[in-house]
């Protein structure tokens, strides 16, 4: 994606967008290649994967808890409906 498109999408000024892009390039989250007179930027999500994996285990614990909580809620709803009758 060219930088002008990013400027339009983000609604930020071009120097600001360029500054963000520079930081993101430094940590390899964004890669760039020259296409004619334009510089094309693309996302590289690979460095985020270890963070995602790290957080996923914790998220899984909450999934387990909340799935069980949902079962409890199904029962409570039935009781509630019975009381309404």
């Amino acid at each position, binding site marked *: 994606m060219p930088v002008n498109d990013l400027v339009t999408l983000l609604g930020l000024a071009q120097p600001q967008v360029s500054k963000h892009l520079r930081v993101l390039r430094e940590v390899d989250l964004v890669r760039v290649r020259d296409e004619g007179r334009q510089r094309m930027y693309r996302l590289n999500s690979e460095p985020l994967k270890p963070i995602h994996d*790290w*957080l996923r*285990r*914790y*998220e*899984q*614990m*909450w*999934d*387990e*808890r*909340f*799935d*069980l*909580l*949902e*079962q*409890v*809620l*199904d029962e*409570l*709803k039935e009781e*509630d409906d019975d009381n309404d009758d």
Partner: protein
Amino acid sequence: MTTTTSGTAKVTLPADNQILITREFNAPRHLVWKAYTTPDLVKRWWAGQRGNVTSAEIDLRVGGKWRYVMDAGAGFEVAFHGEFREIDAPSRLVNTEAYEGIPDPDGHAGLVTVTFTEKDGRTHLEMLCEYNDKVDRDAVIESGMEGGMQESMDQLEIVAVDLS
């Protein structure tokens, strides 16, 4: 017919010392509140798939204490406790949360703010956990991994026993 929303908890890290957990439930919030704050009901969900809750004590008033204990197998106990700071049933609950498995649990306690929002009979739960710093926050996330490790080790043991 009940629409379940299995496995849809979202965990994000809004700041270095924070964890934000969100989830939607297919139930009105007075029931979510009830399931969240009634000891006998907490016992049924708080351990997830990682063990059994052996004790859940809740003194639901400002300044009141709570304590949950889970038996994670092989004599491994996991206990958390804390104090209620704000109670606004059924929409908002603020409490501290300390893990008893580390030195000085209360010094590393988190502050947990849970909000329940109802829309069209469904409840959106938002749980913001705030810690002293990034180190404490990351330790909490790692402890979730520990639980996962425990499960993996159990699985490994089953396989090993099968092989022997």
